[in-house]
């Protein structure tokens, strides 16, 4: 049942230490501002789920929020490595990071199974790869009709899904369009959800390609214009490619990363309906 609140309120109410949290947005509509609020509220021991952990998860991992990462592709898209992610995996800094690693198809089916209330999904995948030997949640399954062996993946059932959308209406119906990724599945698979939006409008006019999540299937809704930055919200902002490039240097060294975090995350707060200011 949608509640329109501030971002700080949403994160405070929805996400607790030790929770399993899926922040989704497939290279579009990535909920950066919500991730920053999680860092600011110093959540710890999170199991973070995301098909494509990129800059926002590099930041959460580097800030020490995460105990475990469930994912299928971790990188700075179009640029290179995630240095904070690698530092955690290779050097356990700032703390060890447990990995549960799948393919995109596997993760997508795990979310879809969760959204469907099923304990597992079925796909043709993983066979012959090293993945099943190194990760949880993969098993053979035999077709009861043909005898063929396929792959089962365990459902994802996060405590919280976090997404960014273009708009909501006053009742809390959420609308997004463009590349829609796996956000619907993430929200429907999760017990709670936080949705940041570019704006709240009186009513949602139909849009080509739009997904609408009805108010009764959504949790907390917070207005955060530009909340996907440096990712983008189609029709509202463009990808800040320079930031993706710059992140490589910012994140390479621990101290520079810490300084960036102090200045740009801890040193800021987000207020409803306003842009970010110092606080």
């Amino acid at each position, binding site marked *: 049942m949608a509640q329109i609140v501030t971002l700080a309120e949403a994160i405070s109410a929805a996400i607790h230490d030790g929770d399993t949290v899926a922040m989704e947005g*497939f290279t579009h509509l990535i909920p950066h501002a919500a991730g920053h609020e999680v860092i600011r509220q110093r959540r710890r021991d999170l199991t973070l789920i995301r098909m494509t952990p990129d800059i926002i998860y590099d930041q959460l991992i580097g800030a020490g929020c995460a105990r475990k990462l469930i994912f299928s592709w971790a990188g700075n898209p179009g640029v290179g490595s995630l240095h904070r992610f690698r530092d955690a995996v290779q050097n356990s800094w700032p703390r060890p990071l447990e990995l549960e690693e799948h393919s995109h198809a596997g993760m997508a089916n795990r979310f879809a199974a969760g959204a469907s209330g099923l304990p597992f999904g079925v796909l*043709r995948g993983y066979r012959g790869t090293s993945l099943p030997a190194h990760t949880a949640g993969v098993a053979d399954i035999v077709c009861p009709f043909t005898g063929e062996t396929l792959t089962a993946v365990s459902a994802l059932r996060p405590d919280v899904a976090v997404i960014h959308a273009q708009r909501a209406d006053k009742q809390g119906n959420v609308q997004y369009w463009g590349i829609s990724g796996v956000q619907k599945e993430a929200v429907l698979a999760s017990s709670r959800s936080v949705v940041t939006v570019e704006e709240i409008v009186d009513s949602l006019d139909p849009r080509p390609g739009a997904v609408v999540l009805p108010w009764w299937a959504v949790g907390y809704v917070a207005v955060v214009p530009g909340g996907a930055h440096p990712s983008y919200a189609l029709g509202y902002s463009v990808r800040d490619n320079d930031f993706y490039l710059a992140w490589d240097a910012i994140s390479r060294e621990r101290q520079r990363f810490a300084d960036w975090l102090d200045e740009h995350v801890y040193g800021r707060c987000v207020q409803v309906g306003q842009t970010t200011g110092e606080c």
Partner: protein
Amino acid sequence: MLTYTADEMMTVTAARSLRDGMTCFVGIGLPSEAANLARATHAPNLVLIYESGTIGSKPGQVPLSIGDGILAETADSVVSVPEIFNYWLQPGRIDIGFLGAAQLDRYANINTTVIGPSYDQPAVRLPGAGGAPEIAAACREVAVVLRQSPRTFAERLDFVTSVGYGDGAGSRSRLGLAGGGPRLVITDLGVLRPDQQTCELVLTGIYAGVSVAQVRESTGWELRVSAELTEIPPPTEAELTALRGLVAAASQAASRSPASTSRVGGLPPAASSRLGASPSPAASTAPLASPAAGVGE
């Protein structure tokens, strides 16, 4: 006389491997450059499909990422990520999968996950699987694009992320992989194809100015060379012009500074974007450490 880089030669060669009217599941990076070049030159009806769910995208530039807005705005259809994998990729209805790789073995198996000594204690943590395992499994055929060196062309993979021909002939059918597997591997030195009997990669084409010895030295196993080795024609002026135009358009798009830059922890826009053909700092110094060469976003 035209001058061009080895990477340009590689991209042009990769583009030539795509036929007009094919459906192509495109990995980001080199595969995306090549696929877009093909569409801009000899294959205007090439259907580009990205794992972000865009079907039939017609970008006028190399997309910045597989989630570039231009892919959705120019697509015939945009579907969810579960749908693109389940309804479109998995049943084998896509003609060709175009992948990058960090490491490849003689049977064209791909590693984009970790470089030794062990999974839990890797020397280098790579980005992981992304869409590659199922692209490699399901497409009617697969092409792989990567720069060739003794480290990237490895005797043994530390991790098999995506299956080419497994242990050799018969592996794919034993594993139940319905797609045809890698039809060719395009590098910055030449082109390799699987032997029809053994499925081992054989050097079948070589670029002008590259010697077989040089390719052997850049391969981590005892490389087989085809008796009918051919020299691959250099890029035409049309190909180079089109490629450079696509890359320049991407750079321009990348340097459009978003209005929101200064709002949420952003940085002032750099004087010039380094995206596109220019390698990232990581990639230029340590190719294996760079996931930019891998598949995924």
